[in-house]
Structures are given as C-alpha cells and as structure tokens.
C-alpha cells in the first residue's frame, strides 16, 4: 500500500514537473530567455481555478460573501452535482485548463513586454521580482484566492470512488503532460526551434537576417507560460484547494531550472530524463528523510536535507556537466534528413 502511494506520488510530480520544465526548456533551453518567473505562470493557473472558476461557480449558484467561506460552500454543492453527472466534472476540468492556458499566455506576454529588451541577467532578475510581487500579493491579499487561508476547489473527480481518485488523477496529469510534451516537441523540431536557438546564440545576427527578436521573445514566453499554467490548474484540482504558499519560487522556478540543467538544455528528451531523475530522488528523500538523517547522523533537521542536496547537485552539474544528461542536438527536419541520405548515397 505504501509503495503504491510512492509510485503515484512519483507519477503525479513527474507529470506536473514535466509540464513546467518542458515549457521552461522552450524559453530558456531553446530561446535563452532566463525566465526566473516561471512560478508566476504556474500560480496564474492556480488563480484561474481558485479565483476565477470559483467565482463563476459562486455566481452560478448565487452564493455571496467572502471567497474563503463561499468556496467551501460552492465545493460541496459542485461535488454533489459532479457525483451525479461526471460530464460536468470533466467539462469543468477541460474548460479550466483552457482558461488557465489563455490567462497564462496573456500574463506571460504582459510581464515580458516591458523587460524583453533587457540583457540576460537583468531580465532574469526582473522576471524573478515580478513573480515574487505577484506571489506576495496573492498570499497576503485574502480577496483574490483567500491569501493565507486559501480557498477550496471542487473535486472534478467526485464521481470516482475515493480510493481510486488518486490513481485516476495521476493518469489525467500524465496524459496532459504527454500532450504538452508532444506539442512542444513538434513546435521546437522546426524552423521555429532553430530560430530560437539562433537568437540565443547571437541576437545581432538574427536581427541582421530579418528576425524580429523582441516579438519572437514575447510570443515564446506567452507560449511557455500558457503551458506552465496548465500545471498550476492541475495542481489545484489535484489538491482540491489553492493556497498561494504552494507556489513558491523554489518549487516552481528553481527546481524546474535544476531539472532542465540536469537533463540537458534545448533537448526535450533530456527534460524527461532530468524530471524523472529529480522527482524520483525528491519523493524518495521526502518519504525516507528521517531514516536517512538517522542513518547518516546528520547534525541538522531532516527537512533541510532536500535543499542542501539539490543545491550541491546544481553546482556539480554546472561545473562538471554543463551540457546535462543528454546533449543538445541539431534540429533535423525532414528535408535535412533527406539531405543526409543524399550525402550518404553520394559516398
């Protein structure tokens, strides 16, 4: 039983992090845009569910009052309806994901707009700051998504018996992560992916050859943020509540950066490898951290083990294996593959 939960935990976090990391890989790995505000897009996804969908449901059922109490009421009413009518549950989930992606894209574009002209390091700091401000506002302002009280979220799988809910949700997350991966892989294995890499290597050359670098950057961040917002919405429905503190920069910005560095920048397969390795270690650490602390006679509290380990891991990757587990590869479009065949034949 415990082992089953362990595997489910790994699957769920693998799926959520794959969505976030694949989006970050488009922006940073391919495009060289250091989006240190990744957590913001994830938070927007959660706000879509906790703040907007909840309010739509409140209006539908005519519930008034503060979002914190009202969301609890809405949750129980909606759960009953979903239990009787599964289509509504799935409908709410799909609609929320689409809305989250849309809002993610809009906020992503909006926040990069004033800063896209900045050079890499300033851009990173600006995006981190914007993300932090948004985090603070949603944590201390109780009107938006309940601040430090948080809000309840309907159980979109209320029609599923309790013990099966987790496994079905894990499958849903995995499915959406898979679709997001396919989408990104198709989009990046194209002249667009090549253009992003070119801009990353030398912005000046890209401009000289007629590429509007600013516009490409803005569109890329909008695209990446749309995908990352899916993870936020999924996480909200998975945990049946939204509280801003779950969307910290460590979990949704720094860890994703660590995972794509580990897997290999600008390589989608590398992202899978990086996320899988990271999530497995993280979940095992979380489950066995007391045993590990006791066995190693660590002089500090077990909760710090995770941060220290991943911090050291980051340093090791950057110093000894900056290209990651799987190296960046040139983009082989079909016409290029045909060229390879022709060259081989000529020999």
């Amino acid at each position, binding site marked *: 039983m415990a082992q089953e939960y362990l595997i489910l935990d790994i699957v769920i976090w693998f799926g959520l992090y794959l969505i976030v990391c694949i989006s970050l890989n488009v922006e940073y790995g391919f495009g060289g845009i250091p989006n240190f505000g990744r957590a913001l897009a994830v938070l927007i996804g959660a706000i879509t569910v906790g703040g907007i969908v909840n309010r739509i449901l409140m209006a539908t059922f005519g519930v008034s009052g503060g979002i914190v109490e009202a969301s609890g009421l809405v949750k129980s009413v909606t759960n009953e309806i979903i239990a009787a009518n599964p289509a509504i549950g799935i409908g709410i989930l799909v609609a929320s994901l689409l809305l989250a992606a849309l809002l993610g894209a809009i906020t992503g574009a909006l926040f990069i707009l004033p800063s896209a002209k900045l050079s890499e390091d300033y851009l990173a700091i600006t995006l981190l700051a914007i993300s932090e401000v948004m985090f603070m506002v949603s944590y201390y302002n109780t009107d938006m998504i309940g601040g430090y009280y948080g809000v309840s979220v309907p159980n979109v799988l209320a029609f599923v018996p309790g013990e099966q809910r987790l496994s079905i949700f894990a499958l849903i997350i995995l499915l959406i992560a898979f679709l997001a991966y396919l*989408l990104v892989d*198709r*989009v*990046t294995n*194209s*002249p*667009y*992916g*090549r*253009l992003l*890499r*070119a801009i990353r*290597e*030398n912005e*000046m*050359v*890209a*401009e*000289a*050859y*007629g*590429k*509007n*670098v600013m516009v*490409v950057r803005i*569109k*890329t961040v909008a*695209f990446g943020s749309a995908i990352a917002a899916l993870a936020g919405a999924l996480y909200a429905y998975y945990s049946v509540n939204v509280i801003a503190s779950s969307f910290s920069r460590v979990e949704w910005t720094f860890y994703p950066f660590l995972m794509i560095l580990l897997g290999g920048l600008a390589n989608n397969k590398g992202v899978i490898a990086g996320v899988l390795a990271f999530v497995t270690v993280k979940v095992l650490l979380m489950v066995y951290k007391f045993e590990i602390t006791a066995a190693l006679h660590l002089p500090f509290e077990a909760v710090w083990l995770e941060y220290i380990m991943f911090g050291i891991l980051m340093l090791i990757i950057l110093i000894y294996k900056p290209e990651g587990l799987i190296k*960046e590869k*040139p*983009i082989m*479009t*079909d*016409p*290029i593959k*045909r*060229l*390879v065949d022709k*060259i081989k034949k000529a020999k």
Partner: protein
Amino acid sequence: MKEILKTKNLSKFFYGLKALDRVNINVEKDKLTLIIGPNGSGKTTLINVISGFYKADEGQILFNGMDITNKPPHEINWHGIVRTFQVPQPLKKLTVLENLLIAEQNPGERILNSLLKKWVKKEEEIVEKAYNYLEFLGLDHLWDSEAYKLSGGQLKLLEIGRALMANAKLIVMDEPIAGVNPVLANNILDRITELKKQGITFLIVEHRLDIILKYVDHVYVMANGKVIAEGGAEEILNNKEVIEVYLGATDEAVKCGV
C-alpha cells in the same frame, strides 16, 4: 544609371567625435561599390548606420527611393538589405548548415505554422540552396559540425555564405576576403560578379585592394568620417590625396630609405 542606395548628408557622432560627417554616397544597382579608407575612417560605422544597428544623428538613407533611416535592423533586412560582420558572428552551437538556413525567412519560424507543419516546402528549397553554397565555399564536408569548431578562415566563409544565401537586393559586406586564401577570394568575387548579373548589388568594405580592385565598378574613399574621393579604380589609384591618406606616400618612403 540607377541607384539603389543613397545617403544624404549622413552623420553619426560619438560624444563629439564625428564618426560620419555628412557622407553622401550613391550605390548603383547591379554594381559592386567599394569603400576604402584608413582604420577609423568610418567605414564600418557607415555599414552599421545603413543596416540599422546604429542610429543616424543627421541625414537620410534612401533605399530604392524609400526612406529607411533609423529603422530597426530586421525591418531593413525585410526591405532587402543584408550585411555581414567584420568579425565573423557564427551561431556557435548551431551546425554549419543551420547557420545558413537562418538567412532566409521561413514560414515555420512562427509557432502556429510550425505546429501545422506549414514549412516543409520552403525548408526543402533552402536546404538544397544552402548545401550548394557550402559546396561552393568548400565547407560541405563540415555541414553537420557545430560552428564553434570552425577555423577563423572557415568562419569568414560561413559569414559570406550566409549573406549570399539570403534573398537580398543589396548585400553589404565588411571585409569579406580578409583572411581568405587568394584562390578562394577570387572564386568568391567571381561568384559576386555572377550574382551581380542576377540583379544583386554589392557594397563592400575591403583592404585587400590587390585582389578586389579588378572586380569593382566604383570606389569611395573615406577618411576621418568624410568621403574624400570617388571614381573608378584607375582614377582612385592615381588620386594624390588617396595615396597620401591610404595607399601610402611611396615617393616619400623612397626618400626616407624605407
């Protein structure tokens, strides 16, 4: 005589230093116009202003009669001007082939088009074109190696190949044959002569006069940000002022026993 590019009293200042001082040049269509001048005379600054990388402080640039002064570089490219850089600017982690492919506009460079695969036809076309250029430049055996592995001379060729590859009306080159071996330099200039016949105009800055002069149609000489002379190759070689500031005062050198 039909001019494709014209600058009118073009000036550029760097904190009081007049890098360009009321420069007037006319580049004739389908011709090779050469700019020469001593180091620091403003040749590269002129290229940077024409291609939009520097903003002009005064004056105007007309391309096919259209005012393109101070437009962003990518928009100037859309009008049909392509430039190369004096120091080669390779896309280091991209392959040699990919470095050339980026020169053209491909519909697949937009997210939605890339998703819908609306780019295969164009890609087919430019991959073939790019490979032909690599064969011409003798870089075809390196097509799939990353650009950072190339030697200095090879990077120079890559820079030229990328410019020739772009569908440009005017190609502006900053020292294209510096550091290129003479045989290949002549081949490149032959190819340029061929492209001229196909309706492409060239504006080139170059110091290797021994090789390039027999290919040029018109020469401008710059010194201290000003155009000090213009004319055909012969005319320029015999111009006293040009000999003094650029070609070297041979008579005096002899007197001094150099």
